[in-house]
């Protein structure tokens, strides 16, 4: 009985999460440009997608920056979280408070603040500035994801390893990181998610023709968001789902032994 309720609950939550996604996908086949109207079934937006140069450019930059920012901020964030965890309380609190700032600050404040920073240093806005900005707002979330796991660490094991002659690096690699791995992974996922979907901060820290999907979409809003975006989102969904299922199949087959 308990099992059934659990499954039902999860199913409901997933239904809630995916309801708008389903709507998005359905409207990617809408033969009308407006989401207020159902004009019939069509593939034309998918075809149009391949001709649209803006969207292709935006997609390239979006994915590139998201992956780079997520990877870099996960590495830096994890390492820093370990460092912060080992500090004296007062120091740790101070650093954590500063770490929180990008999370607390409205996007517009972070975005404009970084824009002014780059411009005062005479750095031309473009790919690198957008990447730096993304890393800046991603790292705090990684730190926040890893830190709880660090708090759960059993210090005895670490000390035992060190006592037995393991180098700090070895301890890090073989003892600590495996234990905080869930935190690292969720930190990475959150960072990636934030970067994929950021508009305000990206808009104010980019230039030189570098753009991302969010900027494209927000700029489209005035004239109505073209269903080519729905088509793109649906394709992305299918690709990622496909990858997930493939990876899942490949990692479960060994278990069947």
């Amino acid at each position, binding site marked *: 009985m308990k099992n059934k309720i659990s499954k039902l609950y999860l199913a409901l*939550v997933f239904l809630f999460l995916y309801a708008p996604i389903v709507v998005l996908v359905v409207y990617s086949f809408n033969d009308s440009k407006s989401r207020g109207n159902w004009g019939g079934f069509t593939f034309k937006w998918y075809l149009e997608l391949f001709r649209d140069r803006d969207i292709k450019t935006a997609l390239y930059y979006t994915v590139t920056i998201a992956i780079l920012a997520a990877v870099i901020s996960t590495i*830096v964030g994890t390492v820093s979280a370990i460092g912060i965890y080992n500090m004296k309380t007062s120091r740790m609190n101070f650093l954590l408070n500063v770490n929180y700032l990008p999370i607390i600050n409205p996007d517009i404040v972070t975005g404009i603040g970084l824009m002014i920073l780059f411009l005062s240093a005479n750095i031309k806005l473009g790919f690198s500035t957008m990447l730096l900005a993304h890393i800046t707002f991603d790292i705090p979330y990684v730190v926040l994801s890893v830190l709880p796991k660090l708090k759960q660490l059993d210090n005895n094991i670490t000390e035992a390893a060190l006592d037995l002659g393991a180098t700090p690096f070895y301890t890090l690699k073989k003892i600590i990181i495996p234990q905080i791995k869930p935190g690292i992974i969720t930190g990475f996922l959150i960072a990636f998610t934030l970067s994929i979907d950021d508009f305000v901060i990206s808009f104010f820290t980019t230039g030189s023709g570098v753009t991302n999907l969010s900027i494209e979409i927000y700029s489209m809003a005035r004239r109505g968001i073209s269903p080519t975006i729905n088509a793109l989102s649906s394709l992305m969904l299918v690709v990622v789902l496909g990858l997930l299922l493939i990876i899942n199949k490949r990692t479960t087959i060994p278990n069947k032994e």
Partner: protein
Amino acid sequence: MNSKSRYLAYPYSIWMLVFILFPLFLIFLYSITLRNPNDIKTITFTFENFGKFFDPIYVNVLIRSISIAALSTGICLIVGYPVAYLLTRAKDKHKGLMILLFILPMWMNMLLRTYAWMTILGNTGLINSFLNLLNLPNVNLLYNNKAVILGMVYNFLPFMVFPIYTALNKMDRSLIEAADDLGADGFTIFKRVIFPLSLPGVISGIVMVFMPAVSTFVIPRLLGGGKNVLIGNLIEKLFLVTRDWNFGAALSMIILIIIFISIKILNILKIDKESGVSI
């Protein structure tokens, strides 16, 4: 670990100095100076910008923003905790897949997802069309506070679930078994063992949801129909339309101060260092 590992945080500390503190300092400067209409480099220091906040309109907007954010955070916690718990109980081979499935919707653009909610909730939207089919009257689901809260919960739920999940995952099962052996019932086990151990994750989740919720502006603008202006909308307008960066900066500072004060209060209430997270 050993004391040397704290040096690991030094690179990031420098990063924070440059990319977080310095821009913040600039914003702080804006908040305590007056606007130069002619771009002359005269700086007049003032607290006038902060004074402007104490107009009842702004105070009300801030209170409303904090209440809605708090409510959304609470709902996220109540809905999200069981989800996190159930995810940890999934078979290992399914866990990764389910986690990714959980976050996948967030990779679709937020504006698009919010528009999709408008299609679902609107007067001529999916839900109301369905009700009409059953000859039931329309329900007003959009352009009010409820819609805004729904939107916030929708957008921020994964940020609550993930930290709790990581805290609950690979939790020492032996502790639960021990409590069970000692005769504790399910509720007590939860209250005394599971929840306290997951507290660091819970607090991370609350931070990751409440903070952005206070300052978000897209959701109230679209789902709230512009009638429930939140502090995020005001600040965005101040920076972009009104171009009163000084007042906008002051408002941001005020939010920062209020949140840090609440954190300090939470810290005082926190019992011990083992289970709590120093925020």
